[in-house]
């Protein structure tokens, strides 16, 4: 494909125009002619379709027309979260996407919006363009946050990041004694909330990683955690790492002696349901708290 001229037609499938601005900026970063890229005015002049936005009921038909009109070999590049997942418009009454349910997509560029450098880098990679001498232009700018990455060794699996994520990019799933924390970069908007709330500082937004993919599920960051089971009912309730984190924190902040610590640790072997369910367990918990209170007041 590198030998022939790539003619790009940009299609706005009802996004917010954020991605369109970045695509425009990407075309202004370098001299496109030198790379063998031209901007097409009409879809039937083009052989590459750059799609932004998640497609609604009106743009869906236009998108199909544009895709049918472009010349072979047809290449479709989905730019941004909306094109991949409908992003912030997910669940909207007028939405008919994401676009890979309407037309075949060859490349996804993640981000909300993706940086112009990434858009250009992705196109160069997909079209095997010679970008020698342009590395400086394609570099991640200073201050860009990047995608979240979770450190398996530090993650406690509490789920605070998933609660706070405005883009639903974080999924906490689990079956039995395993819990999976999954960051899906196709949805991420780089807001950094997950990094802010993480109690164990396991999440870090990191720039400089590849941000374009052949399939939208390809870009993930995951942590797997072992979940402990309740001593009484046998149900899986909370990750071992979370209990260990809480106990460590208690050790730092409270002056518990060995017997207090053992008592509290033992009480955490019961699931939260069981702790509140039977009179025997409630009395046992109150016994622990009464003992701690007496120790504190002595």
């Amino acid at each position, binding site marked *: 494909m590198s030998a022939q001229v790539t003619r790009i037609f940009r299609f706005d499938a009802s996004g917010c125009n954020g991605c369109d601005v970045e695509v425009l900026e990407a075309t202004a970063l370098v001299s496109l002619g030198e790379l063998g890229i031209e901007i097409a005015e009409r879809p039937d002049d083009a052989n590459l379709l750059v799609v932004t936005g998640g497609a609604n009921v009106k743009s869906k038909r236009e998108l199909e027309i544009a895709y049918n009109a472009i010349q072979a070999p047809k290449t479709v590049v989905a730019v941004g979260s909306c094109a991949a997942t409908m992003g912030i418009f997910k669940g909207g009454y007028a939405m008919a996407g994401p676009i890979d349910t309407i037309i075949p997509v060859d490349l996804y560029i993640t981000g909300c919006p993706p940086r112009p450098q990434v858009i250009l880098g992705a196109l160069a990679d997909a079209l095997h363009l010679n970008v020698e001498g342009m590395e400086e232009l394609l570099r991640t700018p200073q201050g860009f946050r990047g995608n979240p990455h979770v450190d398996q060794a530090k993650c406690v699996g509490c789920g605070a990041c998933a609660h706070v994520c405005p883009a639903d990019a974080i999924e906490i799933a689990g079956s039995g004694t395993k819990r999976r924390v999954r960051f899906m970069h196709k949805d991420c908007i780089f807001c950094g909330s997950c990094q802010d*709330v993480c109690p164990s500082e396991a999440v870090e937004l990191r720039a400089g990683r590849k941000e374009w993919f052949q399939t939208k599920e390809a870009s993930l960051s995951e942590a797997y955690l072992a979940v402990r089971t309740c001593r009484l009912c046998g149900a899986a309730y909370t990750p071992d790492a979370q209990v260990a984190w*809480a106990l460590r*924190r208690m050790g730092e902040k409270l002056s518990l002696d060995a017997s207090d610590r053992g008592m509290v640790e033992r009480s*955490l072997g019961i699931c939260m349901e069981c702790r509140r*369910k039977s009179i025997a367990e409630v*009395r046992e918990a109150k016994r622990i708290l009464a003992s701690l209170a*007496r120790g504190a*007041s002595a």
Partner: protein
Amino acid sequence: MARSQPGTSVIVFEPQLCTGCRYCEIACAVWHCGRIDVTRSRIRILFDEGRTAERYAAVNCQHCDDAICCAVCPSEALQKDQKTGWVTQNSTKCVGCEMCIVACPLSVPIFDPALKVAVKCDFCLGAPECVKHCSSGALRLCAREEAVQLNARLYLSAKDDR
């Protein structure tokens, strides 16, 4: 860690006085959530007819000194107010990590799925509704020093008769 100043009071529960009317649960839910939904009450009364003694128990916040929940809270949402003795939770600071729910031996805080934060007894900011509506006097306010002794008598000396 934070301790209460002298002269603060706490809510105590005396199981032998409880009648199991659960009016405290309703009052709590109404005050905090504006509706009669005892699943969202921050106090819970347990009743077990099968037991010969101690047939009632309450899951209620002890507003501990050196509270475990405050110690494990990573976002400083749970705080011990030394002047009033209350352990209160700031839901705008809470990140929903459920650390307090996991760490409290009694699991007093409960998770609010709508707000995605933990919620707990906040002493109704002065006049607890559960105490106000307890007709039998099982729930009452009492000086902290006295409450420590009462709880020690209730839970540390008495043999748990199942």
